[in-house]
């Protein structure tokens, strides 16, 4: 799998979220997919739950609808710093990829905090149109504490 294209996929992902173009975010996934936001400790213990969990692109779209129309929270945004992807293995055109990330949360009043660090455990395949898309993105946070609330996906 072309490493440059993987980097571009991650860049598009971070850009969609950080620029608050949330509607672009589900488009980077396949129609049937898995997105989960969890912690390293839960993974280590074999606990399946996530604070966000979606097994379809439509469910990701519902996340976006909810944060646009339903949920109430103090205005804030993220800045992602995404590291270089490492391809752990490839089978039949599907690559297992691990990519570290750091998210700074910028609050309405200007306070900037390290909100989360961790790694993305991805399964990436090529769509019918020839673009790389996520079949799976498991967001594995290094820590288990989520300050106040998590409205915007990681």
């Amino acid at each position, binding site marked *: 799998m072309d490493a440059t294209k993987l980097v571009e996929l991650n860049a598009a992902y971070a850009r969609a979220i950080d620029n608050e173009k949330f509607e672009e975010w589900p488009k980077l996934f396949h129609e049937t997919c898995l997105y989960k*936001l*969890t*912690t390293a*400790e*839960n993974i280590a*213990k074999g*606990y*399946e*739950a*996530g*604070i*966000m*969990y*979606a*097994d*379809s692109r*439509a*469910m990701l*779209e*519902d*996340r976006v*609808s*909810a944060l646009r*129309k*339903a*949920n*109430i*929270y*103090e205005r804030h945004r993220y800045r992602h710093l995404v590291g270089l992807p490492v391809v752990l293995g490839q089978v039949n055109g599907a690559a297992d990829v691990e990519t570290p990330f750091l998210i700074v949360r910028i609050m309405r009043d200007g306070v900037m905090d390290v909100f989360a660090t961790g790694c993305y455990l991805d399964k990436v395949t090529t769509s019918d149109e020839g673009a790389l898309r996520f079949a799976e993105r498991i967001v594995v946070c290094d820590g*288990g*504490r*989520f*300050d*106040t*609330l*998590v*409205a915007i996906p990681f």
Partner: protein
Amino acid sequence: MDTRIDLTVHEAAATPHGQTPHGPWPEDSLARVPYWVYQDQDNYTGEMRRIFEGATWNFACLEADIPNKGDYRTNQVGGMPVIVVRDADGSINCFENRCAHRGALIAFDDGGNVQNNFKCIYHAWSYDLSGNLKGIAFERGINGAGGMSKDFRRDDFSPRKLRTTVLGGLVFATLSDETPPIEQYLGAEITGRVKRVLNRPIRVMGRFSQPLPNNWKLYMENVKDTYHASLLHLFFATFRITRLTQAGGVLVSPDGAHHASYTIGSEDVAGAEAFKEKDLRSERDDYKLADPSLLQPVAEFGDKIQLQILSIFPSLVLQQIHNCLAVRQVVPKGTDKMEILWTYFGFEDDTPEMNTRRLKQQNLVGPAGFVSMEDGCVGGFVQRGIAAASDKISVVEMGGSQAESQATRATESSVRGFWKAYRRFMGY
């Protein structure tokens, strides 16, 4: 059943009986709460002594966390670190996580397994599974020199021990000899509501923690506040998981301390119209899920209760939102900080389909919950809003000024119940 108990104010209390750090309670009504109660450090210290270290049952862990001998979890009872451990005979012990020697934590991980004893890393003093001080390194010194004095009695220095009890797989601990048996503590109704959900062996599905920038009581009040659910949480209302116009009510234990609110699954069209007339923000019928599999619940408790939120004084919440089950432990971290420890769970006999259903419905709660997200910030909004109002009071008057069970959720009855119990424990 009357669960009122004799609550002797403990000797460590910061103020004399009937007095708060700010003089008498502002008005002798359960419907008024002074704001200093969320701000005052002396009051906070008093809460740790009189409530958490007093005659209350505090959540210690799940039985499922410690199935085998020597399995342990660490936790906090108010500000006090504790170890809860399974003993050889199957019983569960709990003791203060503080070495008798220099006060270091005896166990410093979230949990694990010890064979027969805990050993403090600092100077290797060791404790059996009951928390008895059993071994002192170099107690007799080296080559006859040094060591402890001959008249040192280990028994006088063991960490404080807590009594434990188990209800529906929830392990509770108390420092007080006066805390009544758990079923009496909760009352028959609330006990029944705990057993309704926790009716068979559970399995943990995940743990998350959520620090909040507010006093711990603001979260407990929010949990008990059935009035806000349909108004603050749009997701709830729009998708008809619950709203005030659905059938339901709130049970309050006779002493006010504990509650269970519930929703019965039936649509109330007339009620929906009433909602529209009020033009409430939280009612938007045009909002539909692109993937409705998020919310395809099945009744699993043999009744029509879709939602049950239950609180056990002082700081535990047991939640059933359809098939999304969790316990939330509220840990105070100072006058204006707290943490929710979320444990999502299912049952050992869940089918793969039920497991997936729970995973999807877990989107509803937790730090990123569609219906709980706002609860994460609203306590902080109160904490900030009252910054200059310590001598002012809040109004908790929906549904009257008493703290009884009511067949409506347009009430703050169980919030008043919290204050009824709180004032009794605090001697206010």
